[in-house]
């Protein structure tokens, strides 16, 4: 036994290795999960706070809207159909709605009552409401109607 000689111990401190590979694997799993479950579509929100007859404020909280127009109040009644808008006997394509809205805004319009026709879809209603929202019409009332 006296013949057994042990090797001299190394003077260098032993270095422990740390592998990042399992961490990278877990991170990839998380990445795949978020890529599959998240949506990057650009959404926009439009306020549709209903009141007594579906008051849709252009901005902010829904005010208490009287159901009858006062003498001073300027009210426009529009009817939305498939791709078009009827206002005062005039039919306007929804693509040209700004031509209709801009003069009314300059005239100080207070309220717009929007009747949705049978043929009107959510897309038609959204187009009309977007134009009215951007024009900052104080109040927009949407009423389900069958004007067309």
């Amino acid at each position, binding site marked *: 036994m006296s013949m057994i000689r042990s090797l001299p111990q190394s003077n260098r401190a032993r270095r422990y290795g740390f592998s990042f590979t399992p961490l990278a694997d877990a991170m990839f799993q998380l990445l795949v999960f978020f890529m599959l479950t*998240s949506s990057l579509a*650009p*959404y926009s*929100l439009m306020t549709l706070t209903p009141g007594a007859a579906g008051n849709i404020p252009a901005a902010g909280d829904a005010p208490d809207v009287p159901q009858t127009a006062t003498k001073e109040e300027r009210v426009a009644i529009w009817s939305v159909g498939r791709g078009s808008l009827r206002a005062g006997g005039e039919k306007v394509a929804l693509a040209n709605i700004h031509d209709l809205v801009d003069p009314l805004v300059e005239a100080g319009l207070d309220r717009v009552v929007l009747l949705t026709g049978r043929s009107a879809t*959510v*897309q038609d209603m*959204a187009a009309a409401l977007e134009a009215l929202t951007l024009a900052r019409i104080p109040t927009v009332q*949407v009423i389900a109607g069958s004007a067309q």
Partner: protein
Amino acid sequence: MTPEKRNTLPKAARKIQLDFSLTTVNIVLLLIFFFLVSGSLVETEELTVDLAQTTELPLDRLPRPLLLMDVGDKLQLNGDLVTPDSLRISLNPLLNADTPRLHILADRDVPAGALVSLIQRADLQGIEIKLVTLRQFKTKP
């Protein structure tokens, strides 16, 4: 001068070889942050509807609670099927007590009358309702 007496600079410390995976982890972490910040989690059914398109409204993330309304008059609240009668009951635990808010994800081909009838329901009075639309970026002429 003999070589033993020459003043030499100390040996540079041995460069530690970093694991290649560390770079991968950093990049993947950045990608995860990107998806966490810019994306919003959606139910599979919520991707099937064609939303009404708008062009100028400000951008927003897909909010909750979300009521899906498709052309077949099917209603889904946060991915769970609901009937018009059970909507209010199912909605109660999801509403914020201070600012009750419901978001509607309606297909663009749903009749506008159906949507208006829904938002005018007496049991949804007092709840702020928002319509979710898809922002379509204008192409430059």
